[in-house]
């Protein structure tokens, strides 16, 4: 395995872990207004994500940094090309982060209602936005000969040579993502809360699955028409079919555990389902990072965008050390906070 391939795996894993970890925070946000009706319930839900959401977001920041390190040209081309969408995502991340951090600072019910609404709306738009960004990567972008591109928000709403950021395909992927993360967030709350919140969350999860399945089937059926290159990678390296297989199995086991009310196992199966989906996409894209719609020769691959060898090697050394430390203390802290969140005594709760 060449070092470029290794870095491709690392970068994909960083973003995939981000989707799994921040995904349940986004999902929690999407269902927040429905599962938590009273102020006490809302604080309970926020406590469930409170100690972990910031750390989860760092996977995005670190993933971006590592993409920059390993494939600087792809980082530059992709981010400048999707300029408008990314800046919007940044604004939404700002609002989402502040809503969690600031909501309970004041007792005032209007203040709280305001941030509650921001939290829910920003989470939903972020989930759709991240999904649509993935959709852009799958569909391809109008790269030019010098390796850059720029896309408007929308052009004709159809994939083609000059697609916009939003077309029916990327919107489909966005909606699918939002639904998958909704179930993910509901699974998480089922573990972390009890009583009314828990039962509402688990109802949403039960129902959400039946939306995920048809949407996913539609997305998979249209895929060969939107981007045939994915299919070609699988034909060239059929070993990759194990990834969609894992995805399907994870979906089934998730349902199995859900029936038996094994909350933890359901959550992990669903996480595996998400990882499997992202892995399947990555296998299909490989070795492309950004596929050019105009001319395959303009595509940015891990080979024509990689940083020189020394940087990749030394990066690998410190990254292995750094990420081992991160995993070690993250596990310790998660273990420390495991279990249902405690109810805060009323007189002390507000701060």
């Amino acid at each position, binding site marked *: 395995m060449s070092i470029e391939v290794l870095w491709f795996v690392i970068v994909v894993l960083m973003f995939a872990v981000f989707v799994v970890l921040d995904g349940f925070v986004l999902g929690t946000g999407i269902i927040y207004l429905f599962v938590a009706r009273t102020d006490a319930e809302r604080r309970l839900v926020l406590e469930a994500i409170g100690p972990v959401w910031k750390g989860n977001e760092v996977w995005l920041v670190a993933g971006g940094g590592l993409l920059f390190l390993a494939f600087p040209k792809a980082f530059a081309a992709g*981010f400048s090309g999707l300029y408008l969408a990314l*800046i919007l995502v940044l604004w939404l991340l700002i609002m989402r*982060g502040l809503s969690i951090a600031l909501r309970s600072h004041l007792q005032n019910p209007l203040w709280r209602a305001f941030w509650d609404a921001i939290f829910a709306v920003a989470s939903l738009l972020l989930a759709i936005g991240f999904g649509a960004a993935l959709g852009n990567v799958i569909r391809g972008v109008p790269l030019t000969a010098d390796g850059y591109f*720029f896309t408007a928000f929308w052009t004709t709403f159809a994939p083609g040579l000059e697609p916009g950021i939003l077309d029916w395909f990327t919107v489909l992927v966005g909606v699918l993502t939002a639904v998958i993360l909704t179930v993910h967030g509901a699974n998480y709350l089922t573990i972390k809360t009890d009583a009314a919140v828990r039962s509402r969350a688990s109802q949403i999860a039960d129902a959400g699955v039946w939306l995920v399945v048809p949407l996913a089937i539609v997305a998979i059926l249209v895929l060969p028409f939107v981007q045939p290159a994915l299919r070609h990678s699988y034909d060239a390296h059929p070993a990759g079919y194990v990834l969609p297989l894992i995805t399907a199995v994870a979906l089934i086991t998730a349902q199995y555990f859900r029936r038996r009310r094994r909350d933890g196992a359901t959550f992990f199966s669903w996480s595996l389902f998400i990882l499997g989906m992202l892995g399947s996409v990555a296998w299909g894209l490989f070795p492309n990072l950004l596929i050019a719609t105009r001319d395959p020769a303009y595509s940015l691959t891990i080979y024509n965008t990689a940083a020189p060898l020394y940087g990749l090697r030394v990066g690998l050394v410190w990254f292995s050390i750094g990420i081992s430390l991160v995993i070690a203390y993250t596990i310790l802290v998660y273990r420390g906070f495991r279990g249902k969140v*405690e109810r805060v005594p009323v007189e*002390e709760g507000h701060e």
Partner: protein
Amino acid sequence: MESALFYDRLQFATTVIFHYLFPQLTMGLAVLIFYLKSRAYWTHDAHYNDAARFWTKIFALSFAFGVVTGIPMEFQFGTNWAKFSTFAGGVIGQTLAMEGVFSFFLESTFLGVLLFGEKKFGPFVHWTAALMLFLGSWLSGLFIIATNAWMQHPVAYAVDQDGAVHVTSLWGLLTNPWLVWQFTHTMTAAVATGSFVMAAVGAYYLLSGTHTDSAKTFLRTGVVAGAIASTLLLFPTGHGAALQVFEHQPIKGAAFEGHFHTESGVDLLIVGQPNMETLTIDNPLIVPQMLSFIIHKHFGAEIKGLSEFPRDQWPDTMPLLYYTYHIMVGLGMIFIPLMLTAVALLWQGRLFQARWMLWTIMLIAPFPYIATTAGWMTAELGRQPWLIYGLFRTADGASPLVSSGNVLFTLLGFLGLYLLLGLLFLFLFFETVSRGPTVTGGPRSTSAPMY
């Protein structure tokens, strides 16, 4: 795309200046909280624990704003500076990624422990969390300053066949000689901000007669740390920074000192307005031959003036650069005597009664922010016209296909959003301060203070 570049620069400058308002407080407070936590841990004095808990709340507030405004910084390298990222990603990709992996995880995870884990994890882990928070935030400063230091003074790189640069020694990148003074100076400035704010809150409580016990601790800690930091800002760190500028970036040095023409025995300019038509200073107030002495330890030494260098290598905003530098140094020269006087009063046991001093300490708190912002403007405006000094021009760095209309759109969006964020922060800061520290005398009875 001439004007796209202008908006790109303006957007980066505004967003980074706004971002840096928050980390400077958190990095400064991180040290002070660690100190308070250590006292609490070794002496079992719950009073210090209460103080640490209060400042952790302020820390968390500032941290939240720092995080949400930091993410746009990282992504703007790609969105607005695509050509620069393509050119320099082989070098600065390293330090930016290291910041993510080594410090952001550490900070975010252990802030969670500090805020939510006092009861669950016990006092030792809680103390460790304070240490990790300090380490994480300072490492974050280290890696980002290493990035900037490389842009000021590129080292340990080579040019590859397609014209981009890449790192040839990670060690060389992290031991960039420029980093030594830039990092120590910036971190000292962060401690100044943190301690000035802590002292100001103490002064406010004493003057209004509330929370007087906590107030005295805040004042003692803030004033002593503030005096040390202010002194170190001038010497050795500020002095060291100035020397290396004159050695490696003589144009920047001449520009920020307002030194137009090469001569021997150069005067140190205290105030005066640069006149770009005549290339002289209007209304100068000077210390004769002092600049020569500061830079070369010799009153008669020669220093090259701006007119020595081709005009297309001058920073494009020389007067602004000159003012920002003088604002920073001017404020620095006010901080030192002020804080030393406060320490003297503390020593004699009169500080808590000296109302005029308490008023001054309370009102001076915004000024370290002004000094750091002015300092960064000095460093960054003075780097022009280079994005990477001597290697790559700012004009070549912007994203080629992002039009000026699109950048103006996002710039206006950032301005509006950040105005709102700034007001929000101030409001919540004053709200938290006016609620004051809670005195519990022990670990709090709940593990979840925040929601």
